[in-house]
Structure formats: C-alpha cells, structure tokens
C-alpha cells in the first residue's frame, strides 16, 4: 500500500534545486561581493535562492513573491545597448537588489552572445 506521507522520508530542503533551468547567467558587481556573501544569512537561504532563481529565469517579469520597481532617472537607464532599465527587487524588508539584464551579452567582442543578469547593488536595512 502506498501513502502520500512517509514519516521516515526526510522533508526536502527548503529552496532546493531550481524548478526551471536557469536561462540567464547571473553576474555580480565585485564591489558587492561581501554583501552577496551575507545575503542568505540576512534574508534566509530560501528567499536568497528565490531571488537568484527569479533573476536567472525571468528577470524582466514581475515577481509573485517580491516587490519590484524600475529605478528612475540616470540610475534607471540602460548601461549600454541591449541592457534593460534598472530593476529594484526587494528580497525582503531587510534586503534589496538592483539589477539589469541583457538577452545577448558579449563580455568581449569575440565572445558568444548569451543572456546575462548583472547585479549592480545590494543593500541591507529597512527603509
């Protein structure tokens, strides 16, 4: 007899493998390397992964679980041809990420074009 609930089967780890294969390569501005290292600790591994999964799969869509805003003025302008405007993603009340995405980015002129998301800034603390 099979049962939907097996008390001896451990529960899956929260925020395990992404359910959809990443499409975008996620890049991080080096000046925010330390912030990124603290992200999971500040917001929890599940929310940090949900943010990464959103960026890696649908960076141009609104998130069902986080508030997003397009930044205004110079801060919101594309960093060059092909780049999106700057999206401000609220990972939680305590952490926010600003990013742009590019559907056919080349890191050098002879490189292959591929979709990337560039995390520009990470900030902590409540508004």
């Amino acid at each position, binding site marked *: 007899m099979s049962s939907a609930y097996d008390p001896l089967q451990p529960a899956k780890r929260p*925020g395990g493998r*992404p359910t959809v294969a*990443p499409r975008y*390569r*996620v*890049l*991080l*501005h*080096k*000046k*925010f*390397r330390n912030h*990124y290292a603290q*992200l*999971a600790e500040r917001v929890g*591994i599940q929310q*940090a*992964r949900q943010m*990464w*999964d959103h960026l*890696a799969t649908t960076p141009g869509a609104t998130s069902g679980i986080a508030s997003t*805003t*397009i*930044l*205004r*003025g*110079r*801060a*919101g302008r594309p*960093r*060059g041809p092909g*780049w999106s405007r*700057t999206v*401000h993603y609220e990972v939680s009340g305590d952490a*926010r990420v*600003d990013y742009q995405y590019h559907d056919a980015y080349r*890191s*050098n002129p002879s490189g292959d074009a591929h979709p990337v998301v*560039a*995390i*520009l*800034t990470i*900030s902590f603390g409540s*508004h």
Partner: protein
Amino acid sequence: MSDVIFKVSDLAQSRTELLQAAREGRARVRDTDGTGLVMLREEELQLIELVADWSRAHSCLLRLQQLGRQPSVSELGDQLAWLRVFDLEDLREFANELDDALVAARADRDGAALRHCLHAWRVTARQLQDPLRRSVLHGAHAPEDFEDAQRPGATSPVRDVASGRADE
C-alpha cells in the same frame, strides 16, 4: 452632480437621499448660518488633496529649474528635500513625469499612477543616498567589474567575467 441642496434637518429626515448623493459625487448641505457644506467619498477627498499637494510641488520644481543650478535643501523645502540626491537632469525628468502623472490622476480620478511615480522616485532617491551604490548605478559598464554570482548555497568558485579566471 445633483443640484439639490439639503437642509440641516435633512440629515435626519432625508438621510438616505443625502448619503446617496454623497456616494454619487457630492451632497451639498446648507448649515443654519448659511454656510455651504459638502459631503463626498473619502477616497475622492484624498485624491483632491494628493493632486493639490503635488501640483504645488510641481510648480515649486518648475520655479527651481529656472535657477539653472542645483537647488539647495532649503530651497527644496520639507516636501521635496528627498530630491536633493538628484542632479538637474534627473530633477527635470522627475518634474516631467510628475506632470504626466498629475494629468492622469485628474483625468482618471485615480491617484494610483501618481502614487506609483512618487514611490519609484523615492526608491531611486534612497538607492542614491549611499555613495557606493550611487557610483555603480551612475557608472559606465565594464565587464571586468563583474564576476559570476553562484546560486546561494552553491560551493563553486567565483569566476571573473572578463578573464574567465577562477578566484581562489
């Protein structure tokens, strides 16, 4: 809007009609001393106050733009002091977007677009308050400034974007 002017006594005797008129737009009541009073939906009053408030701010911004220089915090005043992080170009863009949002609010009798505009600019102002964030958000793109960001919890080494070299 109804042309009916209710009397004070109608507050008790014609309460249903008076409230219906208020729900449909305005209920005008003449007080015993002749003062005209108006009852309307609270959300409409909030919209009127919001539009009036930001129309004044918009006029102030247009005056400040004529200075041809960055306005001081005291010139911006309490309501607009949060805009001090923006340069003249951004202030001009804000004034234009605010003008569009005010027109939309009046035309649609809905302040959602105006509130959204103000929220987005306030969020941007907060991000620019920090010098490090400001330098990156206003800086030019350079591939060497970026490295791969692994999914949180992953253990792969950090890889530099421009060189493809792994950091140890």
